[in-house]
């Protein structure tokens, strides 16, 4: 396990959890989770379905009580001071929990009123958030007519009505198309960078945790199996995969030898595709130079982020398997947005194309 990198020593932790355990009958959803999230940072819980990510969020947001262990959120015990914790946090669940029968405006108005805003203040806040989240034009349409991306934005807006100091985002981009996902990332960056909000997010995508989180904890079967900065985690797991296909198959032995030497590991060969996990992206230009010098034509060459599966394999020696509590079925209305499922690795942006 990687040592925790503390890069915000001057802040007190926004979230501290110690030995959290939660069981559902014979199923152990959390098997002793410890975590510390410094104020003003983004903490990513990375893991497959059923790893216990959502359970951890539900405990920290006071929706459920842990069977054992203790957690402080904003300095308050989630078990004994839930009402105070709820005054500090916002929660956006995995499946957009907006009231489908109400319009976007009414959803936000209701929450403003519940939070004690006057009618006019609640209306003003609702309008402001609807504009910020590009929902102003659909403000007076029932939320059931919204696309998946719009619902997700409304759900996030709903959790921001009370200007929370801490935000829990449970798989904020699962089911979103790449454009909506990038928008969501920008919103999170703005909340943290511009407003000092502390964010705890769960995700199944290494890419997302890498993009947003200051610290990442990898969760498997209710336990944190690795913990550290994205850089440290990538260094440990070989977070990128280099793949090359020679233009001419007769060059295969030469290519395999070059990849083996530069990556320092024995490459996998599938058909004419040679691939290896690498920790240093500089391997890519080095390989290009090497093959060019040798006069070997390159058919295809890519450097992409390793998938969660590959990270799991590196950390545990077994691929990520869905735990006992697999995800709820997506509600049928989620398909109205016409957005592709994001489980398709092709939908992820290859690391090589990023700045």
């Amino acid at each position, binding site marked *: 396990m990687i040592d925790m990198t503390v890069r915000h020593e001057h802040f007190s932790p926004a979230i501290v959890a110690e030995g959290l355990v939660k069981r559902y009958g014979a199923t152990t959803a959390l098997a002793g989770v410890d975590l510390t999230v410094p104020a003003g940072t983004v903490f990513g819980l990375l893991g497959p379905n059923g790893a216990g990510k959502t359970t951890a969020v539900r405990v920290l947001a006071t929706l459920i009580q842990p069977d054992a262990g203790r957690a402080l959120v904003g300095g308050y015990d989630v078990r004994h001071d839930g009402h105070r914790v709820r005054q500090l*946090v916002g929660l956006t669940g995995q499946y957009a929990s907006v009231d489908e029968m*109400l319009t976007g405006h*009414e959803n936000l108005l209701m929450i403003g009123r519940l939070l004690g805003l006057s009618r006019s203040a609640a209306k003003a806040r609702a309008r402001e958030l609807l504009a910020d989240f590009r929902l102003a034009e659909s403000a007076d349409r029932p939320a059931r007519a919204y696309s998946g991306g719009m619902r997700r934005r409304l759900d996030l807006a709903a959790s921001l009505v009370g200007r929370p100091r801490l935000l829990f985002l449970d798989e904020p981009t699962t089911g979103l198309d790449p454009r909506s996902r990038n928008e969501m990332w920008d919103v999170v960056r703005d909340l943290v960078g511009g407003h000092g909000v502390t964010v705890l997010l769960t995700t199944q995508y290494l890419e997302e945790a890498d993009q947003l989180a200051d610290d990442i904890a990898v969760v498997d079967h209710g336990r944190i199996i690795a913990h550290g900065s994205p850089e440290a985690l990538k260094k440990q797991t070989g977070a990128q995969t280099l793949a090359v296909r020679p233009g001419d198959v007769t060059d295969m032995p030469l290519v395999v030898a070059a990849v083996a030497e530069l990556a320092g590991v024995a490459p996998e060969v599938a058909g004419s595709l040679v691939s290896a996990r690498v920790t240093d992206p500089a391997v890519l230009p080095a390989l290009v130079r090497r093959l060019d010098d040798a006069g070997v034509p390159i058919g295809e060459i890519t450097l992409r982020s390793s998938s969660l599966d590959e990270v799991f394999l590196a950390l545990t020696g077994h691929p990520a398997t869905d735990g006992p509590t697999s995800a709820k079925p997506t509600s049928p209305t989620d398909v109205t947005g016409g957005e592709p499922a994001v489980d398709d690795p092709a939908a992820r942006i290859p690391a090589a194309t990023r700045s």
Partner: protein
Amino acid sequence: MSAVTALPGPIPGTTGHPEPVGSARVSPLDALRHTATLAWRTLVQVKHNPMELLDFSVQPLMFLLLFTYVFGGAISGSTGDYLTFALPGIIVQNTLFTTLNTGTGLNTDLTKGVFDRLRSLPIARSAPLAGRILADMTKQIWAIAMLLGLGYILGFRVQTGPLQALAACGLVVLFALAASWISVLVGMLVSEPEKVMIFGFTLIFPLTFVSNAFVQTTTMPGWLQAFVKVNPVTALADATRGLLVSGPVWTPAWHALLWAAGLAAVFAPLAVAAFKRRV
């Protein structure tokens, strides 16, 4: 009592001060405000969902027209006589069926994740339940008013007085409030809203029809009369009839109130426990 004792003092490493926030509890006045806001939310839903309006306004009116003009002549010899007899019964029947909406609404909130959102907010824990019940009682009063209004147009006249008529509405709503705890309990136990309806129809259909809500008890076979006489719907229909038209009031009203108290005493604690367990 939790098996885990809270550790004394701060967790090691937590040196910072807690974030400044408001009080540790919700004040009763705030709890009422939260309940009112959530009741508003349930009523506003109707605006965007005309089918629901149809459900709790048009359906009872259809029943009223159907019973009066299709069965009325056959049962009472004249539609006017039958309307006078049956309208109180239809009010009772409709009110009991409408209690199912409380369970389906709660179950929908549960399965759609709306409760997660509400419970993450610093509001009274009872407000989502109380707000739903308050809104549903408002709908009940609306439906009773519609039935009395259409009844008036068709020739039904309150033969007692305005106070008795108000008492009739109050009694029916009070009974519905008690009965809705069954609906809440079922709503908390089943996996999807439709199952509340299936359960409700299975229970409420025989209860309302095997009563004297629509026909005189004396027209039924003896073994069935035995059930009709102990059926709480009979007591409620008799009392409503007595308060709106004529007939005994005190005895059936007491029976109905006792039943209501009994239902609430048994099902309210069960429903609240199920609510706390599920949300």
